[in-house]
Each structure stands twice: as structure tokens, then as C-alpha cells.
């Protein structure tokens, strides 16, 4: 790992001039043959990889209207060029969304379009060579698939779709990314990203019960594999013991306890995350998701609730019904699936929760909209519920709340810098630099309002902030979950008043 300087925080975000190649060295570790094998990919680069890659690309485009349109429609207007946090943080022009798309579009043009076949020099078409593959590996692992570019593109071109397709092609030729592929293997084999087996999970949950009993005096349960429970909670496995994630899980448990709703976790499906989305792998996307359907049926639950996790909520909200639905075996009175914030918000509306804001008076809070929740999903009945519902919960749990600058929140939110399968130590330089625009906006509310706490609803955001905050001279424990705040504020009956 080369040493690097974290970027300085300025008074406002500056669009850097282009510095070609400054991030060309940023490449994650390559998946080993055993990681590849678990997912059904070749263990090493196959002999005729150019042919396989070009064929795979053609298949993908023929199966995706999005790719058909996105690869044709770009007019190189430049609207997206200053929108990606990795460009803003590094100045490497291949981190401009259009340039990242062009890494793949150039190959598509060469093999599948009239102009690219006969006039390659005119339209920037390129043959699939080793150099191109190397560029793909570097720069398609510098996209967190946050979709910020797609908000600003006049044709809605979503670079996430293109980086997913490129990663899928790289997997198909035997060049996978270790971090994502190893993790997907663990989910398939054990049931969660951490590889936490059932006895360890049960121990952890028992420990949490004791901790909460000590803290509140209440018998808040953390049930596992309870048949006949009303709600199955599917949450990122980081919630089981990572800090600050676990405070969120405690928050969910307290909410269910206060509302008298029976719930359970599942050891078969002890993971909300589904990294198969990051690598554009539909087969494993479904395989991982199917465990959740199996668990719900096996436990006989009536509702499925998803914990605080950005991409998991995208997969659950946008893809589950397609991949593992229909959910006709669940209670039709509730959305399937439901976000934990929707559950808490509904209970708040019905007066079923007692929240004491003053319990969080040590905190001046801001909210970081996680990209997949903001731009790839919804909460509640109306568009934008994914922005208003978490904020309403925070405002009910704390007295002091301040949003960051409007151009950096809600649909304009900046990625934490660690999403999309990049939350790995071999990409730490990229992660730190990619966090720059978010850190810039944070600095402003820290200086203006004395903000000392960031709430987020994504396990990746929480881990990423914990890692990068110190690089920008902020305390690493500034980050927490929305349900961490709820957990502090909630009053559990007579004992805890």
C-alpha cells in the first residue's frame, strides 16, 4: 500500500482539474481460485478471455434495456463529470462517470456497432486487450455504484449498471475481486458475510440480552430461529457485533419490545447484505436472497423487516419481489418487505413508543443519506419517504438536529466512499479520497452548528466513516445509526422511567 496524503478540507467543494492516471494504481486484491469456484466462476484468467469477454458483453446488452440505451445514448455533454465523489476526491478523469462508462462503451462500440466497427478512431472504439482489461479492473473498482451520476444525466444513464456489467464480465473471464467474492462465498456457505455460525450468533445475542437487561432493567429479547414469530428481521451481520452497528440492533429490539411485537432473527438467513449486486451477478443475487424466503417460510413469520443497510434495502425493496416473490404468504396489511425505519415511524405515529429526546442531549446530530436508500429505493407511501422518515425518527429522538448543505443530501447525497464492494483495506486510499465531498459538507455543519454526531442507516457507511473520519481529523465515534439514537431515547415501561 503506497503512502498517500488525505486531501485537505477547503471552505467549499472545488472541482479539481483533470490529472490523468493518478489513480491507475488503485486495484483491489484479485480473488483466489477458491473464492471464484464457490460462485461458479473460473479460478484464473481463461485462455480465450478476450473472446469470452466480448461474447458475455453482447449477451448482457441483449438482455438489458438499460445497457442498450445507456451505451447508445450518451452525448458526452459533461453533465456528470463533476458529480462523482471519486473524481472530486482524486481528479483522475477516468473517475468521471462518462469516462468510466467509456471504458466499457469503447469495447461495445468496437464489436457491436457500425461506427465502432468501421470508424473506430472516430468514436473512440477499442479492441478488448490486456491493457483495457487492466483499466477495467482498476476503475470499475473505483465506482461505488451510488447512482449520483444518474440523477444528473439528461438520459438517466446509471454508471452503476455499467460497472456491475463490467465486473460480471471480469468474473466470467476469471478476474474476480477478492473482497466481494470471498464474502458472497461465506453467505452461501454459512449464512452471513462474517462467516458467523449459528452457535456464535446465539452467544452474541444472549450477551446482548444481558447487556440491555443491565442497562435498562427490561427483559428485551434477541430471539433467534423462533418459529411462529410475527416478524423476521433481516439485518446486516455487522449489526451483531461491530461498533457502532450493534447499537442499532439493540434499538430494533427495544422498539419491538416496547410495541409488543414478537420477532426473530434467522441463523439460515443471518445477513441482509447481498454483495452479488455489486458484481452484477444475477444468479447469486437470487441464490443469496432465496435463503431469506426459505427462512421466512420455515419460521412461519407474517412480516419481513430489513435492518439498517443501504444496498440491502435496495435489493430487498426493489428486487426481492421480482427474484424471490410473490410474498403472498405474508400479512398483506404490511408492505413486504418493510424497512425498520418504516416500522419505528408507524409505531411513533400511533403513539406506541415513548421517546425521551433529552437522553441524546449530549449529541448535535446530522443525517447522512445513504446512496442506495436515497436513489434506489423508497420508504412509506410517497416518493421521498426515504428522506423524511429517518429524519422524523431522528427529530423524535434528539433535540439538536441540523442537515448538511442541500446539494449534498437527499437525492444529491454524496456516497460515504466505501459502498459498492469497495469497503476493503486494499482500497483505503480510494476510500479516504472518495469521502472528501461528504467530509467537506460535514466540516461545514461541525463549524456552524457544532455537530458532533452523524446518523446513517447503512452498515457500510458506518464502517467506512469509522475508518475515514480520523483521516480528516474528526473523531471516529462520531458515526452511529438512527436506531442507535432511538435506543438511547426510548423509554421501556415503568422500570426505565
Amino acid at each position, binding site marked *: 500500500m503506497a503512502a498517500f496524503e488525505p486531501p485537505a478540507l477547503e471552505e467549499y467543494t472545488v472541482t479539481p482539474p483533470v490529472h490523468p492516471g493518478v489513480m491507475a494504481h488503485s486495484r483491489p486484491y484479485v480473488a483466489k481460485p477458491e473464492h471464484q469456484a464457490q460462485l461458479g466462476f473460473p479460478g484464473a484468467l481463461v485462455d480465450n478471455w478476450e473472446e469470452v469477454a466480448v461474447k458475455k458483453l453482447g449477451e448482457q446488452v441483449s438482455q438489458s434495456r438499460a445497457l442498450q*440505451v445507456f451505451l447508445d445514448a450518451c452525448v*458526452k455533454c459533461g453533465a456528470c463529470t463533476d458529480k462523482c465523489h471519486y473524481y472530486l476526491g482524486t481528479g483522475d478523469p477516468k473517475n468521471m462517470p462518462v469516462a468510466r462508462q467509456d471504458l466499457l462503451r469503447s469495447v461495445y462500440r468496437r464489436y457491436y456497432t457500425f461506427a465502432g466497427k468501421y470508424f473506430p478512431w472516430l468514436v473512440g472504439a477499442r479492441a478488448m486487450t490486456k491493457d483495457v482489461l487492466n483499466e477495467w479492473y482498476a476503475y470499475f473498482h473505483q465506482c461505488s455504484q451510488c447512482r449520483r451520476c444518474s440523477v444528473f444525466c439528461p438520459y*438517466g444513464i446509471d454508471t452503476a449498471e455499467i460497472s456491475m456489467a463490467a465486473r460480471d464480465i471480469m468474473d466470467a473471464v476469471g478476474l474476480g475481486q477478492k473482497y466481494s467474492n470471498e464474502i458472497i462465498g461465506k453467505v452461501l456457505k454459512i449464512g452471513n458475510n462474517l462467516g458467523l455460525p449459528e452457535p456464535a450468533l446465539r452467544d452474541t445475542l444472549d450477551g446482548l440480552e444481558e447487556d440491555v437487561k443491565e442497562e435498562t432493567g427490561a427483559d428485551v429479547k434477541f430471539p433467534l430461529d423462533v418459529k411462529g414469530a410475527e416478524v423476521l428481521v433481516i439485518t446486516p451481520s455487522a449489526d451483531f457485533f461491530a461498533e457502532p452497528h450493534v447499537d442499532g440492533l439493540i434499538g430494533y429490539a427495544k422498539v419491538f419490545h416496547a410495541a409488543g411485537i414478537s420477532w426473530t432473527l434467522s441463523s439460515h438467513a443471518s445477513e441482509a447484505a447481498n454483495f452479488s449486486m455489486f458484481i452484477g451477478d444475477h444468479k447469486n443475487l437470487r441464490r443469496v436472497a*432465496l435463503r431469506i424466503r426459505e427462512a421466512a417460510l420455515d419460521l412461519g413469520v407474517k412480516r419481513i423487516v430489513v435492518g439498517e443497510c443501504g444496498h440491502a434495502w435496495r435489493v430487498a425493496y*426493489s428486487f426481492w419481489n421480482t427474484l424471490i416473490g410473490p410474498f403472498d404468504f405474508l400479512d398483506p396489511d404490511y408492505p413486504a418487505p418493510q424497512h425498520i425505519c418504516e416500522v419505528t415511524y408507524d409505531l411513533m405515529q400511533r403513539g406506541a413508543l415513548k421517546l425521551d429526546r433529552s437522553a441524546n442531549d449530549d449529541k448535535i446530530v446530522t443525517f447522512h443519506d445513504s446512496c442506495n436508500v436515497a436513489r434506489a429505493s423508497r420508504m412509506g407511501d410517497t*416518493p421521498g419517504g426515504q428522506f423524511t422518515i429517518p429524519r422524523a425518527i431522528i427529530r423524535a429522538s434528539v433535540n439538536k438536529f441540523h442537515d448538511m448543505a442541500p446539494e449534498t443530501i437527499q437525492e444529491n447525497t454524496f456516497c460515504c466512499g466505501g459502498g459498492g464492494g469497495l469497503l476493503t483495506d486494499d482500497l483505503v486510499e480510494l476510500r479516504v479520497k472518495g469521502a472528501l465531498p461528504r467530509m467537506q459538507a460535514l466540516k461545514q455543519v461541525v463549524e456552524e452548528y457544532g455537530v458532533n454526531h452523524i446518523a446513517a442507516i447503512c452498515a457500510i457507511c458506518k464502517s467506512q466513516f469509522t475508518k475515514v473520519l480520523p483521516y480528516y481529523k474528526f473523531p471516529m465515534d462520531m458515526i452511529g445509526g438512527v436506531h442507535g439514537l432511538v435506543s438511547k431515547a426510548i423509554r421501556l415501561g415503568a422500570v426505565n422511567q
Partner: protein
Amino acid sequence: MSAVTVGYALLFYAASTVFALGVARKIYIYARTPQPLKIPTTPAPVTRLGVAGRMLREVTLFESLFKSNKWTWLFGWVFHFALLLVLLRHLRYFTEPVWGWVVLIQPFGVYAGFAMVAGLAGLWARRVLVDRVRYISNPSDHLMLALLAGIAASGLGLKFATHTDIVALKAFVLGLMYFEWQPLPADPLLLAHLTLVATLMIVFPVSKLLHAPGVFFSPTRNQADNPREHRHVAGWSAELESPVGRS
């Protein structure tokens, strides 16, 4: 019948055929290719009607571009709507008698010619002067601007500098439409204008001009945000075997 007339008549039949078949083929491909997953960029409308509204704003106001960059939006919007007016103004060559509203917009169409050039100049300036946009530009991007600027400039030239016999020109155009060829005035500027227009029609289906039909098929813009309410399946997601369990 002069060689010029025959040549341009054949050129325009060829260009029209390439344009119509090429664009129709692309639209057919876009329409027929499934979109297996729901991927609207949210917040998105939750109903089809809402989606129609979003699309209408996108193609008339360039809503997303407006959010992105005010200069690109200004130049782009001015260019496109000037082009629209100019195209409508040209309907007078294709209709006899000329429709009333086409007569009404004639003077605006002239101003639009200048606005078109101004918009193109702005877009071209950005392509050269802004380092990020310069970096992403291919030769074809400059050529496309040159082609459009050439069409606008030669058109304005015909209006303000060297007039051509527009009555004869109209007879030529109507003659093409009714397959009763009439002579084409052989003024060099007119021939240049027509050649550039025919070139534009021919490259349209194999170039980035496909953004025009493409935007209507863009899933991030044309899908309703209702995946929990309506089970969406298409393409490979429709071919998945039913999952285990009651249903």
C-alpha cells in the same frame, strides 16, 4: 432533368430510407429488449401517469440537466428548441397549402436559426474550454457539432446572403414526396445545406443522436417506483423457476 436534380433526389430517398429504417430498427430493439429488474432513479413517481409527467419534463425542460449544470442546460435547451422551431418552419416546404400555424411561426423560425448557432457555439466552447469535457470528447463529438453548425450556417446564409429560388425548391421537395420530380435550383450554398442535412439523416441511426429515441426507453426515468406493490418480471427474471414454498 439535370444530373444535380437526379443526384439529390436519389440522395434524399436514400437518406430518408436509412433514417427511417435505422431509427425504427433501434426503437424496435429498445422496445423489445427486456428490463429484468426495477431500477428507477428515486425519488421516482409511483404511478404510470407520474412517470409520463417526469418524462415530459425531461424531454421538454431537460430537468436533470438543469439540476446538473446551468450553462450546459442553457446552451443545450436553446439549441434543441431552436432546432425544433426551425424544423417546424421548414414544414412550409412540405405542405401545400401551408398550414396556418406554420405561417404564424415563420418569423420566430428565423430568430431560432440564430439561437441554434448560439447554442451550438456555447456547447462547442465548453467542449474545448472545460478540461473535463475536452477529455471525454472524441472526434465524432466535434464532427457532430460541425455538421449541425454547418447546417445552421448554410441555412442562415440562404436566408440572409445568397437567396435561392425557394418556389422551385418547394416544387422539388413536393415532387420528391409525390414521385413527380421537379428541377432543383443548383445554387452551391443550397446544395451544401442539403448535403449536410442528408448526412445528418444518414448518421443519425448509428450515432449518439440516438439519445432522442433512447431517452424514452431509459429505465431509470421511465419505470414507476412500485416494486413492492406490483411484482415486476421481464426477460431472465420472468424465466426464473418458481421459488420453493406456498404460493
